[in-house]
Each structure stands twice: as C-alpha cells, then as structure tokens.
C-alpha cells in the first residue's frame, strides 16, 4: 500500500457537502460547499452557537440575518438559507470566487482614480441599499470586499456585525488593528451604524487610491489619537475633488460627517456613476432563520460524515443482466459486458483514492463526487473518448462493492482498460481476491 493518506470522508450538512475552509476567525469559519441536489457551489459561514448564546446575541443576530436574507443586491453577497445543528449555526452564502479587492492593491499597488471610483460607487450602492433596509455593517474592512469572476464588487458579512464585533473586541485590543473603524466606535460614545459605515468607506477609498492606510501607527494609543482627530494627509496624486470628498467623509464628528444623499451629489462621486439595477425579489421566506435560532429540536440539521450509498439485497439483485431488458432492443449484441464489479473490505475513501491512483497513469482524467467517480480517457479511441462511471457501494458492514460502467467509447477498449486498471498494484491492495473469499 502506498503511504499516501486516504481521502477523508466528506461532511454533509443538510443538502450541502462541505469542502475546504476558505476563511477563519476565532469563533467562525467559512467553508466552500456544494449543494448536492443541483451541483451549485456556495460558501457556508459556520458560527459557534454556544458563543452566540453566551454573548446574548441570539435575538440581534436573528433579526439582522432575517433582514439580510431579504436583501437581493448585485453588490451584496446573498444569504440563501440558514440552518442550525445543536452546536453550530450555518449561513449559506453566495460563493464569490474572484478573491478580495485588496489583493489587487497588494499585487498592483494603488489603483487609478477612475478604477477606484468605480469600486467606490459599487461599495456605496451596497451600503446605501442595506442602510435603507435597516441593516448596517459596522465592520467594513478589506476582507469583506470581494470580487466576483466578472470583477463586480460584493460586500460580505453585512448583518453579521453583532457577531463579528465580539470577535473583533479581541482584535482591536490585542493583535488586530482598528484602522477602518470610526472614532465614535473606538471611543464607545454610542454611534449610528450608517455614519460609522460611511467613515469605513472613506478609509477604503483612501487605500484604493493611495495604496496605503490614512491612519497607521505602530502603537494603539497613537493610532486611536490620529483616528480621533482625523489626522491624515492625502498624497499629491489625488485630484483636488477627491481630496475634498475624503475630508467630508473622514470627519471625526459623526453629526457633521457627509451622509449618503449628499455623497451622491458630490462632483467627484458623480463622474461615471450608475445606479445599480436589479430585480426585487418578492416573498422571501425567513422561516429558516427563525427555526435556526429557536430552541426547537425538530429543525436541527446534523453534520455527518458522507458515506457511500448503502446497497440492499434487492438493489444488488436488480443489477442482474437478466433484468436489463434493454438488451432485447440492441441491434448488435457483442459478447462483451459493459460493466464490471469487484468487492473490497477496505474503507470506501481508500478505495476511491486507489481507483484514482490506478486510473491517472492510464491517461484518465478523474472527476469525483461523493463516492462516485467519472474517469474520462484523454485519448480518442475507436468510438471517441472512453469514459467510465465508477461508484462505491456499501453492501454490508465493512464490505464494499465497486461498480465500473462504460458510459462512452468502445466496449472492447473498456475491457482492455479494465484489464490494465485491475492489475495495477495499487488497486490489487484493495480488491478482495477469490482466495480470500473462500
């Protein structure tokens, strides 16, 4: 047996199969996931339910997530549904796969003013829309600004600020930096979500155009002081109109700070501005949010390790060639079978790994889904590319049956493939041979 580690069984939550972690905080993580019913990819934010309860955030979080579920805006990451297990809350989100906006700055340095303005337009559109629905972010920062595959800005974590702030108390005092946070939030003077979000948007705009932070000090005391007084200097390449707008946004007094309606009328902002166009969704159901946050056991999902399909005796029996009457309609009946089986007493994930190891050297591309696998030949044969569907079934405890079925290409080539495939040393390790069976 090769020393390579066998693939871990996949974890299922409801109809979602969880994949790798794509983001992590102290009390929450975001995982890549797939809806097994339709194959769509999503992101799932997993919150610690006990943490929510401990900090008495249940009601607030429930309210904000319900509001967020109602939001359908092209610049806001969509919440599809909410589920809960005994220990976790799962928020199913639109998957945005173009990376963080700030990766662009890390890679290319500052952005041109026009490009920065275009992203700023989208950010303000998102913020304004959410504010109009009574949802405030309160924690706008680079990690929350994502780009989709078309380069469209998507703001994430709206409505999760209640939870995020608990996490960020730690960050602001210990390891993190409060660079994007409004002075009134830092000073705990009581604040209005809308004005503090505008401040954060101003800091983000500055970073997009400058390539560095407006407020940056090695120690927290000095940094707080600078933020409190709004001590920053715009670089020389900023246009006068941009400098003027930033002064209005980064106003330390929340009462005199520019508000969205005024911002929309600003000369610099208005250049090339397009309002977001989108379809309003009617009748969005938020019952799942209520169910996830209440104490009832009936709506709980379980996080379970994905297992192969269990095959009962009749499923086994129904695979007899005698029951496949399609053969009556075949015009030319070859004397070769188009499917074959073998049994194994090894764990299913190990069988999957070995099949993959055996198929790749034979020139097959491997596409996996649960305990199914499609092997696609990269060379064209007599009847096109040979493709083979394989599936691992659990027939009895600790006994698996593997079915290999030709789904495309030539049947004789399938037999030749199986001969080479089954004689590979890796596969020999998992196949239960006749002498062992006696």
């Amino acid at each position, binding site marked *: 047996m090769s020393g390579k580690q066998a693939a871990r069984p996949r974890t299922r939550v409801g109809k979602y199969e969880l994949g790798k972690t794509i983001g992590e905080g102290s009390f929450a993580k975001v995982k890549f996931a797939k809806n097994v019913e339709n194959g769509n990819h999503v992101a799932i934010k997993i919150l610690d339910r006990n943490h929510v309860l401990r900090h008495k955030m249940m009601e607030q979080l429930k309210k904000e997530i319900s509001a967020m579920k109602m939001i359908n805006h092209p610049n806001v990451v969509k919440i599809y549904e909410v589920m809960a297990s005994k220990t976790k809350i799962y928020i199913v989100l639109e998957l945005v796969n173009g990376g963080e906006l700030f990766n662009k700055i890390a890679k290319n340095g500052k952005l041109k003013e026009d490009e920065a303005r275009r992203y700023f337009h989208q950010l303000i559109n998102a913020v304004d829309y959410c504010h109009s629905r009574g949802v405030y972010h309160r924690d706008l920062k680079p990690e929350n600004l994502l780009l989709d595959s078309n380069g469209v800005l998507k703001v994430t974590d709206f409505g999760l600020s209640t939870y995020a702030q608990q996490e960020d108390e730690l960050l602001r005092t210990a390891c993190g930096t409060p660079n994007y946070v409004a002075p009134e939030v830092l000073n705990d003077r009581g604040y209005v979500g809308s004005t503090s979000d505008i401040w954060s948007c101003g800091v983000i705009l500055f970073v997009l155009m400058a390539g560095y932070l407006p407020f940056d000090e090695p120690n927290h005391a000095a940094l707080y002081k600078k933020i409190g007084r709004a001590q920053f200097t715009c670089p020389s390449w900023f246009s006068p109109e941009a400098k003027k707008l930033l002064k209005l946004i980064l106003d330390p007094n929340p009462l005199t700070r520019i508000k969205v309606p005024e911002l929309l009328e600003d000369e610099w902002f208005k250049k090339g501005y397009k309002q977001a166009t989108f379809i309003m969704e009617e009748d969005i159901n938020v019952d799942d949010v209520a169910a996830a946050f209440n104490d009832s056991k009936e709506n709980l999902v379980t996080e379970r390790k994905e297992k192969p399909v269990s095959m009962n005796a009749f499923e086994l029996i129904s695979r007899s060639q*005698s029951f496949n009457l399609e053969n009556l*309609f075949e015009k030319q009946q070859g004397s070769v079978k188009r499917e074959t089986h073998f049994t194994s007493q090894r764990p299913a994930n190990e069988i999957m790994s070995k099949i993959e190891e055996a198929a790749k050297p034979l020139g097959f591309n491997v596409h996996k889904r649960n305990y199914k696998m499609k092997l696609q030949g990269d060379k064209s044969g007599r009847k096109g590319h040979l493709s083979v569907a394989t599936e691992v079934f659990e027939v009895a405890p600790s006994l698996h049956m593997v079915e290999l079925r030709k789904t495309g290409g030539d049947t004789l080539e399938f037999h030749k493939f199986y001969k080479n495939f089954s004689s590979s040393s890796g596969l020999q390790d998992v196949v239960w041979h006749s002498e062992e069976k006696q």
Partner: protein
Amino acid sequence: MSSTIATDSHGLSDSWTIGERVCAALMPLIAVVEVLILTVTGCFSYCPCISIIDQNHKCTYTAKDFAILADETRFTVEEVEALHVLFKRLSSSLIDDDSIHKEELQLALFQTPYGKNLFLDRVFDVFDQKRNGVIEFDEFVHALSVFHPYAPMDEKIDFAFKLYDLRQTGFIEPEEVKLMVVAILIEFDMNLPDDLLEAIVHKTIADADKDNDGKISREDWKAFVSRNPSLLINMTLPYLKDITSVLSSFVFKTEAKP
C-alpha cells in the same frame, strides 16, 4: 312415462353385442389418435392466437389482432407492429416457431443460450402467463407494457414482486432473498462467506418487513419500493416510448393482413 323410457333405454343397451360395446368404447380413443396423427402430419396447425394460418404453418397476425393488443396495452397499433418485428427476430433466433423459448430469451439477454440463471428463469416465468413453456406474442406485448415509461407505478411494483416471489407464495421470504443474492454474486463472479450473505439478507428483510412477520408481503414491498425507488430502475424501458424508431433499423415488413 319416465319409467318406460328408462326401461326402453336399458333394454336397448342390453341388446348390444360384445363387439359393439368394445367398438363404442374405443371410438373416442381412435378419434384422439387420429387427431394426433393429423396434427403431426401437418393437416392443421395449432396457433395460440387469433390469426390466419399461412402456408408455413406460422401465426400471421391480422390488423385486428394488433388493434386488440393495442387496446389492451399502452402501445399504439404501429408500436404493436414494431414489437412484432422484434418478437419475430427473437423467436426465430434458435427455433423458428413464432414463440420465444427460454434459450432464445437467454441468447438475447446474455448472448449465449447455455447455462442456468435463476433470474432468467423468473423473467421467463412471469412473461409466460399461460404457463405453456414458451412466450407467445400476446404475452410478450402484455409483459412489455408494464415496462412502458407511462405504465402505472403499481403495475411495475407488482411485476417486480412477482419476479422476486420465487415460490409464488405471495411473500418474498428470507430464503428466496438469499438464493437471489447468491445467484447475483455468481453472475458477478463474486463469492462471499455465509456470515456476510446472512448480514445482507437480514438487513434487507429488516428494512422491508414492516409488519415484522419475517417475510415481505405485497404491502411491505410497496412501502419499501416507495422508500427505495431505485429498485424499479430496470422496470422502465425508455426504448418503449419510441419503439417504432428504435426498431426501424430492423427489416420492417409488417405482417398485418387486411
């Protein structure tokens, strides 16, 4: 008056000679032998269907026969005609006699007429509704009608139950399930120790046997299938929805006569 008649008839039989009595007794027997001789020499043919008999002593279906079968099943007259073309191809593969023998069905499904297969026996027996050892065309059409994509689920469930009820007791019993599991493992060229076989059978019976009587009744089976719809995957033949075009590649000469 009745007594007179009785006496008369009695008197009449009394007047028969021994020779006449022997002759009267043997007459029906001679008639049966004569019929057998005539049949063997081909003076008339037996044909199990409403049909015209042609010179080759084969059943030739009329348009009326096809129409009757179409009425009784999910097929149109054209589809019944197409199935007849298929039937002729299958029924003449080994013995050209207008009926499908078990070996011919085995040849069609397994590409070999040899060897014993429990499942083939079951399929053959369920198709052979008249229990005369061959599948005739009307049986063939009626059975395939169950496999039609639009056939009611209940018909498919019932047909599958009949296949698996090996002893036709109205129940699928653990011994029958075990026999079938052994048969499928042989077909797959696989071999399992008895304890694993028992585990598979026990788990399946436990899952399906809702009334806990140790066997699977029709009601148990219906409920089990509704929870495991994949069990009926072979009970639908998509080909049958478009049978005329599927079979158009075969020599297509309709046998219907006006």
